[in-house]
């Protein structure tokens, strides 16, 4: 298997609505940014993977081939991936496989999402529920908030995690977003502000939720041999693990006390591939899928940054904060930075690459030689992809 490098990254700013741009235009702008970053020409790109989650968000059933043509890549291979919130991670994995296998030397991953073209947030949530089982689940109206709230509530009941603890994730990530010029929702908040926001599905209040964003992110992957053609020092993908669980949020087999077993499986696979035994010392920064505040606390445990049930302590001790041992979501994550779903997993990789290059500006974590990007999707994290990147 060939080594795989990230040689270029780019993204648009993230907003609640880019009213002035269609989804192909957003994609194009992120592609241009990544090509400029890499010093790549259009002719360098041999294949493209499109990371686009929801046809309803794009108002188009097969958005990828419209973008592919408008990017000037007609008659080259183009593949669209959609796996819920893990769309970005799985797209990176598809492109990684194309390069690692020797099928192509240079493969581009383009993640893009609209969301505000859907008439309103209720219609948007409805379109997400179409992912459930059509006979037994979708008609009941299960929402993403509902599927994750149950897991967080379980953590609260078993380990004593409180709504205040969850609110501290929001304060951290909205605060981190203040250091990210592309972030959608930088805010200086208190725990009390979060607790006072309107309740959606207990224990999740509005401010515990991820953002709904529009935007795009692109990364360019290259083989070791091809990486030398580009102007940037390569950042290597040394581990990549993927896991798809039961799509039924209440049905999980043989997972012990793991609340997001797909995450644990993907992280374990990525660590094995990267030769990591002790993730808490090996991983210097993580961009992780904080779809809801309490989810991030559970992720610390699934990642092996701390033991089961100690996620709240990990947070309270400041270990996930800027300046801590394992800063999580310096970009602001999904709560403060962005959640343009198809773009998210791609943007996470771009952010970790910037951290390793030392180019993350005010959100830079000192001395990052290895970082982690993790995205997940489906009901209660049915999909997860974990990626280890090294300088």
């Amino acid at each position, binding site marked *: 298997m060939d080594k795989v490098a990230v040689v270029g990254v780019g993204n648009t700013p993230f907003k609640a609505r*880019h*009213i002035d*741009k269609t989804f192909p235009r957003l994609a194009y702008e992120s592609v241009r940014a990544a090509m400029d970053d890499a010093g790549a020409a259009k002719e360098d790109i041999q294949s493209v993977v499109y990371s686009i989650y929801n046809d309803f968000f794009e108002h188009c059933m097969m958005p990828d081939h419209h973008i592919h043509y408008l990017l000037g890549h007609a008659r080259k291979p183009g593949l669209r991936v959609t796996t819920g919130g893990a769309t970005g991670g799985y797209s990176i994995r598809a492109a990684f496989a194309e390069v690692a296998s020797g099928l192509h030397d240079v493969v581009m991953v383009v993640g893009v999402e609209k969301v505000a*073209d859907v*008439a*309103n947030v209720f*219609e948007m949530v409805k379109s997400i529920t179409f992912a459930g089982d059509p006979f037994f689940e979708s008609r009941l109206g299960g929402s993403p908030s509902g599927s994750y709230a149950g897991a967080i509530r379980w953590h609260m009941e078993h380990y004593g995690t409180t709504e205040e603890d969850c609110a501290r994730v929001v304060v951290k990530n909205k605060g981190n977003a203040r250091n990210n010029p592309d972030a959608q929702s930088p805010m200086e908040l208190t725990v009390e502000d979060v607790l006072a926001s309107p309740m959606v599905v207990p224990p999740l209040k509005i401010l515990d939720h991820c953002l709904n964003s529009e935007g795009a992110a692109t990364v360019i992957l290259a083989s070791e041999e091809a990486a030398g053609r580009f102007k940037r020092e390569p950042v290597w993908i040394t581990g990549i693990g993927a896991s798809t669980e039961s799509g039924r949020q209440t049905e999980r087999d043989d997972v012990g006390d793991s609340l997001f077993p797909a995450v644990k499986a993907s992280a374990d696979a990525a660590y094995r591939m990267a030769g990591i035994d002790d993730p808490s010392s090996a991983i210097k920064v993580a961009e992780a899928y904080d779809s809801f505040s309490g989810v991030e606390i559970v992720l610390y445990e699934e990642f092996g940054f701390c033991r089961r049930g100690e996620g709240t302590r990990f947070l309270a001790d400041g270990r996930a904060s800027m300046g801590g041992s394992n800063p999580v979501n310096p970009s602001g994550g999904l709560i403060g930075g962005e959640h343009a779903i198809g773009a998210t997993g791609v943007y996470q990789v771009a952010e970790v690459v910037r951290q390793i290059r030392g180019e993350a500006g005010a959100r830079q974590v000192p001395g990052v030689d290895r970082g982690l990007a993790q995205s997940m999707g489906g009901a209660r994290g049915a999909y997860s992809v974990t990626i280890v990147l090294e300088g």
Partner: protein
Amino acid sequence: MGMPGKDLRFEPMKEQDGFAIIPDTWKVDFYASAGELSRFFIELKDNARLMGTKCPRCGSVYCWPRSWCHDCYEDCDWVEMSGKGRVQMFGTVFISLSELQTEVPYCAGGVLLDGARYPLINYFRDIDFAEIHPGMPVRAEFLVPEKRLGSIRDFYFVPDQGA
């Protein structure tokens, strides 16, 4: 054949050969921004003008418009199209999707507008479909202002008798 606008979600299950046939409808509403292409729809609705875009580097003219040239990666400029062109390809439809089933037969096809690089698709109207042929001169005809919605259906092609 489906019925436009019918919502099946609250209809009772039907039994067919011992199987449960469960009615459903997927319906999602949109207010979709045309973004950087908005001028096309605004000029169409407000002024009955057909707008294209032109690459400042290679000179390609695109209608329907695109905001950048896929060959040159240059942002394009807006240009007004004459609305005249020639039929490139076409097809007459007798069995259609549910919403258009009331409009059959209709004829749609690509028209290469004067100066444009690629054809623009729309309906042919006010013509005997049997007379349509590749190379036939046509021109855009616009709905009256009170009927224009800002939709691609605000215009159609008719024979250009003066060509």
